[in-house]
Structure formats: structure tokens, C-alpha cells
């Protein structure tokens, strides 16, 4: 439901969907859709960006800047997690994500800034999937959580 903003009570990620879709706990507290999942905070953070307003066709410059900085914080969080693992492939994905993110800096008005931001998020997704694979778990699928977000359209979705 558009405009019904609230935050995931577990991880603090901004969830815009109807809290009732995820069920509720005694006292009316909405349940966290990521609860019990490995790397729940990284997943929630990823999806909050993936379904964020910066990806709308009519995104404002402010929303794009917020999306850009959100990706930066997300990459920092992934880096902190990867620091405790010996996963060269994931580290390489993170490096590629940082490179794309740096090139997408909205201050420099890059003509492909949105595409580069999307690439950065895609590399970040792959790093999360590497972490999950090491635990023997299937990859993260943002669309499994789409009902929790105010999903209007997701550009470039076919390339994920």
C-alpha cells in the first residue's frame, strides 16, 4: 500500500507495504519478514534499496541521492561482514560494487548513473549470495519480499 511507511522492527529497514501482509504479533506489532533468515539485516537493507524510490521512473534528484548513499552504507555493511570470512569471490564482487558506486556519484552527473547504481546493487546482491552459499543456503530473492514494499515498478529487473 503506497505511502504506508514503517520500519522493520527487527532490523530497522524501512518497509512501506501494508504491515498486515506479514501478519502481526500480540499488541499489533508487525512481524519482520526477514526474521530467522541468515544475514537478515543485509537482505533487508538490500531490498529496501532495491525497492526504493530512486528506481522509479519519476525519481527526484533527492531520492536518487538518498539511494546512492544508501548503497554506499549497504556496501560498508557487506564489507564488515566479509571481513570475517575468507571469500575472495565475494570480496571481488564487493570491489566491483564499490567501483560502480563511485562512478555513479550523482555530483558528477554521469549519464549512466542510475545504471551504475543498479550495477553496484547487483554486485552487492552477488556478495550476499556468496555468503549464503557458504552456509549452504539458496540465493536471496528480493521478489519473495516484494509484498512488503511499495513496489510500483522495478527497472532492469530482467537483468537480475
Amino acid at each position, binding site marked *: 500500500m503506497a505511502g504506508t511507511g514503517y520500519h522493520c522492527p527487527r532490523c530497522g529497514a524501512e518497509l512501506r507495504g501494508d504491515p498486515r501482509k506479514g501478519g502481526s504479533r500480540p499488541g499489533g506489532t508487525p512481524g519482520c519478514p526477514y526474521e530467522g533468515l541468515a544475514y537478515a539485516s543485509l537482505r533487508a537493507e538490500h531490498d529496501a534499496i532495491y525497492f526504493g524510490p530512486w528506481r522509479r521512473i519519476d525519481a527526484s534528484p533527492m531520492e536518487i541521492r538518498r539511494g546512492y548513499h544508501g548503497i554506499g552504507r549497504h556496501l560498508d555493511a557487506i564489507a564488515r561482514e566479509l571481513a570475517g570470512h575468507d571469500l575472495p*569471490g565475494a570480496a*571481488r564482487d564487493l570491489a566491483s560494487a564499490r567501483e560502480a558506486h563511485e562512478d555513479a556519484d550523482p555530483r558528477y552527473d554521469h549519464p549512466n548513473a542510475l545504471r551504475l547504481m543498479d550495477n553496484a546493487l547487483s554486485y552487492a546482491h552477488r556478495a550476499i549470495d556468496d555468503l549464503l552459499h557458504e552456509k549452504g543456503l*539458496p540465493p536471496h530473492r528480493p521478489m519473495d519480499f516484494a509484498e512488503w514494499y511499495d513496489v510500483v515498478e522495478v527497472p532492469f529487473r530482467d537483468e537480475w
Partner: protein
Amino acid sequence: MIDLNRYPREIVLRSGEKLVFRPMTRDDVDRLWTFFREVPPEDKMYFRQDVSRREVVQRWADTLDYGLVLPILALEGDRVVGDATLHRQRTGWMQRVGVVRVQIAPDYRHKGLGTAMVRELRHLGEKSALRHLMAEVIQEQAAAVRAFEKMGFVRAAEYRDFVNDQKGRLHNLIVLLYRMSSSDDAEY
């Protein structure tokens, strides 16, 4: 030397099915032979050897050398449902290039197993001082191409009418490369 202590590893697919990844051993001949006999004829046409013959699989088992060919099997219980191999050379100009091949049982396709096996090979490649991984795929094997590209492999070359199947028809060969982390500090 690749550390194989990570095996056996349990892998959960998107569907919730649980499989085990582990290296092939000499006791796997019949399991692997059964697996290859399940491969559809149209896929067998692309194999380099006639894997429907048990002696071919037996020869692989007899000459197992993980330093040259590391076959990782995906098992559902006692049944092989996936086979991914990392081929290396100890000497020569290709010693820093690992060649990867993946085969998935028909009823386990489109479940994410192929991607998981490519991810596993990528991890093994990163741990084995290789600079590049190379995959050769027939153009018609679109799902395999997608799985490799999803894991960061890029199309390096396409050879038109380059390889023939077992009926003699020609097919385009796509070569995909993945640059390992260690290739970043290469000196020339």
C-alpha cells in the same frame, strides 16, 4: 592445493530440497554412470567423450587426480544430480587457467543448482591460485550461459560453426572467462 576440508557440504535449493556437494571418489563410478545415462541425447551430443559407456567413467575414476581434474558431485541421497569439474594443468602456458564444466540432471534444472555449482567452482578457482576460469558452452545451452554470466563470467569469444555434435552438425561455441581476484595484481 585446494583445501577439500569444506566437503561434504549440504546445499539447500530454492525449492527446499537438500543436496550434498562433495568430490567424486573411486566408489562413485556407478552413480556417475547412472547420472550420465539420464542425460538427454541432445545434451550428450555436446560431450567430448561417450559418457554412456561405463568404461569411460571407470577410466576417470581410475585416474582421479584432484590436482588436474576436480569433479564435484551434487548428490540427492545416493543419486548424482549434478557434476561440476575444474580442470587444471600443472605446467605450460595454461597453468593459471582453470577450465570449468557443469552438467545438471534434467529434473534438477531451473532450480538454481547450476548457479550453485558454478559458484562452488568459482570459490575453488579463487582458492587454487588461478588467474582465470574459462567455460566453453554451445550457444544453444542458453541456461548454462546465463548461469555463468550471473556469476560474473563474461563472453570473451564466439566461434561460429566451430564445433560439431555427434551427428556432425556445426554449432557456435561461446567462450566465457572469469577473472580471479589474483589476476588484478598481474605483472607483464
